[in-house]
Each structure stands twice: as structure tokens, then as C-alpha cells.
């Protein structure tokens, strides 16, 4: 009949059997990834600004922080944050907290460099024009520089969100029942690794595929909100003109 040299019998029904385990794992994966990403996005902004500081000691500190945090293997980082901190201080660390902290810190380093690239892509003249009309440096950043940089930053942010979802599988080692660990546990009960890991993989792929169009939508909205403003302005102008 079909080509099957090893006579392995796939039993896809285990995926159905453990569907709630996988669903639970997926939800925790999303929770960890979304929270870490949100925190990393916030934390990366001051980090990138420090990195661009003209005060060499500040930019130096940020540079070292970014270099070290990008270089640490995430798995070791997670083990240290969870077990190592307990060994050294005697304090018991919450596994969820430890996982989120590690992902946040490492990704803030990646994102800081993405922000920097986005911010540096904006012509110096933009800032000068804003300053020359009397805007403060912080207002020039908020109203002129950041809105332009933001649009450049969105696509690489989406890539990193996909990355953080996949990297969150590493927090399973400290006992968090995210998707990958749920698949492992289900395997230890059913001895069906290929079916379960394939299912986990397909879920990861599905999550990634959902994010790309979401990011595109955010990007479009960044552009559209402005054109909407304009359309509203035009309509107002017309009605004012009609009234006059």
C-alpha cells in the first residue's frame, strides 16, 4: 500500500486527545510572549536613547548592556534567573516572573538596536526644523521624530514578536507549562512525540502567520490615522466654506 519502510503507525488522534493541554500551553505561551514583548518595547526606548547619548559614559553603559544581554544564551539566563538567584540569595523566585524578566531583558537589547536604527534613519533636518520653530527637544522627539521612526520600526518589531513566541518555549525548563512543555508532558504520558511535537510546531507556525498581517494592519493604521485626520480637516474646511 503506502510507502512505510519502518512500519511506524502515526496516531494523530493523540493530538485530539490532548487538545486542551495544547490549548492551555498555547495560551500561556501567548501570555508570556505578549507580556515580555510589551515590557521589552517600553524598556528598549530609554535604552536606545541612552545608547545614542553624546555623554560617552551613558552610551558606554548602554552599549555594554546591549552587547552582554544579546550574547547570553537565553536558556542559561533563564536557569540562572530561576535557580541561580535562589542559590545565591536564598529567595524563591516566581517561575513566571523569572521567565518574563529574562525574555524582557534580552529582547529589550534587540529592540533597542532596532529603535536606534529607526531613529537614526530620520533626517537631522527634521529635528532642526522642529527646534527652529521653538519646540522643545522632547516635543520634537514626540511629535516629529518618533512618529516617523515608528513606521520604520514596525516590521522588525513583528519579526521579534515571532522570535519571542518561539523563544518562550525555553521557559518550560523552569516548570512553566507553555506550549512546548505541555507537548512534552503529553508525550511522556502517550509516547507519541512526533504527533504532539508536530502539532506544537503547527501551532507556532499559525501564531507567526497571524502576526504578520496584524503588523501590516498596525502599519496601515499608522499611515491611515493621518490621512483620516486630513479628510476630516478637509470636510470641516468645506462645511466652513459653505457656511461662510
Amino acid at each position: 500500500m503506502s510507502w512505510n519502510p519502518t512500519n511506524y503507525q502515526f496516531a494523530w488522534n493523540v493530538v485530539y486527545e490532548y487538545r486542551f493541554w495544547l490549548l492551555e500551553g498555547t495560551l500561556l505561551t501567548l501570555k508570556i510572549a505578549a507580556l515580555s514583548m510589551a515590557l521589552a518595547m517600553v524598556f528598549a526606548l530609554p535604552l536606545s536613547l541612552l545608547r545614542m547619548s553624546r555623554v560617552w559614559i551613558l552610551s558606554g553603559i548602554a552599549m555594554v548592556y546591549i552587547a552582554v544581554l544579546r550574547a547570553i544564551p537565553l536558556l542559561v539566563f533563564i536557569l540562572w534567573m530561576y535557580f541561580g538567584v535562589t542559590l545565591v540569595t536564598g529567595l524563591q523566585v516566581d517561575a513566571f516572573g523569572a521567565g518574563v524578566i529574562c525574555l524582557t531583558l534580552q529582547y529589550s537589547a534587540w529592540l533597542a538596536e532596532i529603535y536606534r536604527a529607526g531613529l537614526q534613519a530620520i533626517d537631522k533636518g527634521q529635528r532642526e526644523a522642529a527646534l527652529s520653530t521653538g519646540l522643545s527637544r522632547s516635543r520634537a522627539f514626540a511629535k516629529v521624530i518618533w512618529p516617523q521612526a515608528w513606521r520604520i520600526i514596525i516590521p522588525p518589531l513583528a519579526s521579534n514578536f515571532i522570535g519571542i513566541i518561539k523563544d518562550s518555549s525555553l521557559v518550560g525548563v523552569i516548570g512553566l507549562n507553555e506550549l512546548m512543555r505541555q507537548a512534552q508532558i503529553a508525550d511522556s504520558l502517550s509516547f507519541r512525540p512526533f504527533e504532539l511535537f508536530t502539532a506544537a510546531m503547527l501551532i507556532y507556525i499559525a501564531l507567526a502567520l497571524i502576526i504578520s498581517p496584524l503588523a501590516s494592519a498596525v502599519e496601515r493604521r499608522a499611515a491611515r490615522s493621518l490621512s483620516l485626520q486630513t479628510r476630516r480637516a478637509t470636510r470641516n474646511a468645506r462645511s466652513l466654506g459653505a457656511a461662510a
Partner: protein
Amino acid sequence: MAADVPSTAGALLELNEVHKSFGHVDVIKGITVRVRKGEHVVIFGPSGGGKSTLLRMMNLLEVPDSGTLTFEDRRYFPYTDNVVNRARRLQELRSRIGMVFQRFNLYPHLDALHNVTLALTDVKKMSRRSARTKAEASLAEVGLKDRMDHYPAQLSGGQQQRVAIARALAMDPKLMLFDEPTSALDPELIGEVLGVMERLAREGMTMVVVTHEMGFARRVGDQLLFVSGGTIVESGGRDILSSPQHERTKAFLEAVL
């Protein structure tokens, strides 16, 4: 508070003995300029001679290494304030001096109207409605009221530069600085920008213009400064264009005319 200094012969703005170097290169080697109210100052000279740097010192986009800057009888440089007050003083100075750049520097994410209203709402704290009215009037002045919902990318170079002029004018500046405003424009678009500038000059706007347009200098300039090698080589009225005294001025004018 910075010390208010006694007025120097009715000058609106005065740079006194300013120096500036970038690394080892002395870009400005001790220049003194007085701009009187209503006066049209034209700065011309070869590239790299320090014209733009000199202009950018007038609103402290470029900070001198030494010398003084006085505007409306108030000393803005050297700084005498603490950091917080200094930032406020800088904003005060810049909100009273309009600047137009060679490469327009319009905000590409905002349409023409919002390019103009940004500083009105943000710096002058005007309401959206009155900022809008003001911006419309400004855009009308440069002949672009019908283009206010266009983004910079949808405008020609000449139109972009006129929006940039409107953006500066809307702040009711006491002084306008133009940094080679037509150098990035196609030849056929230069006229519309110069036209707007000449009308502003006729209406009595005080302005300092760095330009290569010697025709404009001849028509509008009251005080002409030939800047080269970081110093004012020659200065005077329009007659320095027709009868320059200095060899370097002669050579430059022969090359450009």
C-alpha cells in the same frame, strides 16, 4: 535670568565676535554682524566658507565657541541660566525667529496644514481652531491654501519650500532666516520661492538670507556680506556687487555672474 544688555544702535540681532570650530577646523573666525529691524541682509560666498554656520548661530542651532548673541536687547549667548531655564530661553529665541532650510525639512508624516499648526498648538499653545485659522492664513499668503491637505511628497519642491515659509511665518517671527532656500530647487521653481521672499521683504520683514541668487541680492539686499574662509571679507550695500573692493569678492562675483 540673563542680564538684559543695553541696545546697540537699534540692532534687532547682534552676533559679536563669534568663533566656531569643528574639531581642528576653524569655521567662523571672529565675525560681528548687526541686523537692524526691517533690514534685509544677504550673505554670499563660496561653499564651505561659513555662511550657513553663521546663519545657524543666529537661532543657536549652531552654538558658538565664544562671542555673544543679542536679540531684541536680550543676551542669549553666552548662556547664563541653569539648564532648565536655558532650554526655555532657547525656545523663546527660536519661536521668535523663523527659519527656512535648503532642503525644506517639512514633516513628511503631516500634511501641509499640520506642518504649519504643529508649533502653533505646541509652542504658542493656541487652540486647534485658532491654530487652523492662523495656518490657513499663512498658507494663503504663500499661495497654497488649496494644497493644505497635501502631504509634502505630493507637492513640488517649490510648493514644499513655500509651505516651509508658511510654517515659519505662522509663528509671527520678528526675523526670518533663509539658508540657501532655492539651492535644492529645479530652475523653473526658483522664481515662485524668490517671489514670496521678495514680497515678504517689501512688507517689511526683517530677514537674513544666505543665497547664491545674486539677482535677488541686488533687488532686495540692504546689507550684503561676502563671507569666505570664516570671516567677512567685504560688506556694504548693493554697490559691492557692482564695484567690489576686495580681490576675493571680485573673483567670486566674476565666477558666479
